[in-house]
């Protein structure tokens, strides 16, 4: 079950980091291939998500997040586990 508020916060963070148009964001879009993130952008995105949700995201988890939908699902699960806020 995904919270609309979490989806919006994740998408806003992606927009802030990658400077993409929010209307272009879709769940199956790939962060690297479709949204143009390079490796530094990916590191920055993880840092920005940690900042937004107030917790830490380990490297292995970060590497598994390929699409916008992956990020939303991952953050939602971590929030549900109360590992992120």
């Amino acid at each position, binding site marked *: 079950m995904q919270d609309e508020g979490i989806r919006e916060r994740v998408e806003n963070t992606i927009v*802030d*980091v*990658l*400077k993409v148009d929010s209307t272009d964001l879709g769940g199956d879009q790939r962060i690297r291939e479709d949204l143009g993130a390079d490796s530094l952008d990916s*590191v*920055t995105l993880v*840092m*920005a998500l*940690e*900042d937004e949700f*107030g917790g*830490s995201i380990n490297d292995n988890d970060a590497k598994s997040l390929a699409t916008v939908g992956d990020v939303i699902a991952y953050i939602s699960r971590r929030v549900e586990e109360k590992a992120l806020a």
Partner: protein
Amino acid sequence: MNRRRVVVTGIGMISPLGTSALECWSALMAGRHAVASVPSEWRRYAETASTIWAPLPPIDWPAMGIGRIEQMQLDTSGMLTIAASSEAIRDAGIGTAPADAKKNTFRLEGPPPERCGVFMGTGVGGITSFVGNLANHVMSPLIGDVSDPAVLPPMPPRFNPYAVPSMMPNAVSALLGIRWSLYGPNLTFSQACAAGTVAVGHAFRAIAAGSVDMALCGGAEYLRDPYGGIFRGFDIARTLAAEGSDAQRANRPFDRDRTGFLFAEGGASVLVCEEAEAARRRGARAYAEIVGYAETFDGYSIMSMEPSGTRIADMVTAAVQDAGCVPGDIDYVNAHGTGTAVNDEIESSVIERLFGATPLVTATKSLTGHCIGASGGIEAAVTALSIAHQATHACHNLEHPIRDLRFAREAGPCQIDTAVTQSFAFGGHNAAVVMKRTD
């Protein structure tokens, strides 16, 4: 070959007195200074002899074009530099156009970017960021072990992936070259308290010699680490002003009762300098012309000034000669004027020896506090503003001058045709820039 003429056409400044050049200048002229108690949390780690500093005012970073992502990526010294440069470029009337929206970079509507250089000074670069990252690194084995996280010192929640670029001193110059797409020489000078003056001097030389047509130059510094460790470094060396019975009067350069310098949280100043003819052609307003520069080295002690002041006197003499002037031409000296016993004694002696009691002498640090590597840039900006406004700020809190010089006892109008701004640094670096009015 004739040396090309160089003018200051734009000024940006952030200091404990304000977040723009106008705010800082207004505070200087009104005699508004910045003094406060150091952050109380620092006392957890050490009882310091000095307990006062000059904090920066609150800064609205997004309003300065620095959004939340850049705030995570940059050390505060870098953000101060970018913000001051934005103001300076705007102030110079140079238009900008977006270059890369994702990177938040721009192109200047000015000389070819290959002909534009960056010359910035900083004492410690992004060290405060690294102190935070180091704390996170060292404490990480304990984070899961302690039952009460409050026993750990406050620290950033992560070891920042930008730890290296935020720490490196050259970031203050590199960030400006990136932000404004400038491809000429991009240099960082790290002569401690003289860094900003050295940077302005080398920008002047580069434009005068024809290697660039425009330069962003000045100084930047940020000194508030989470634990007051940098403050303690200066305190333990017994260089800082004691609070005494009245904190508001503790910072008093050139006064008999001075006890040390007022540590500032940080600051930045960026000047736009241009080849004079090109500036005239585009209709730019010039605050002042830079006409001379010189530097010497004490070769004496890593921390103490050479007592005779010989190398300082040689340096100021050379700067005046470089400007095509004689000592009698100088009518304003923006002194290094820190408020330490040794600096003020030696500096006032050199001023008396070279200039007598003719020029007005003032100490900007009497109001801003000491912004270390930013101070030379701030004082170059204040000197240019003083020439443009034909006015001086006062040497604040000066009640019993240690020498019979013409100290600026009050703020107000004055004639300034030719001015010297000078800085000296731990290590032994001495530098001065000479400026003239343009009309």
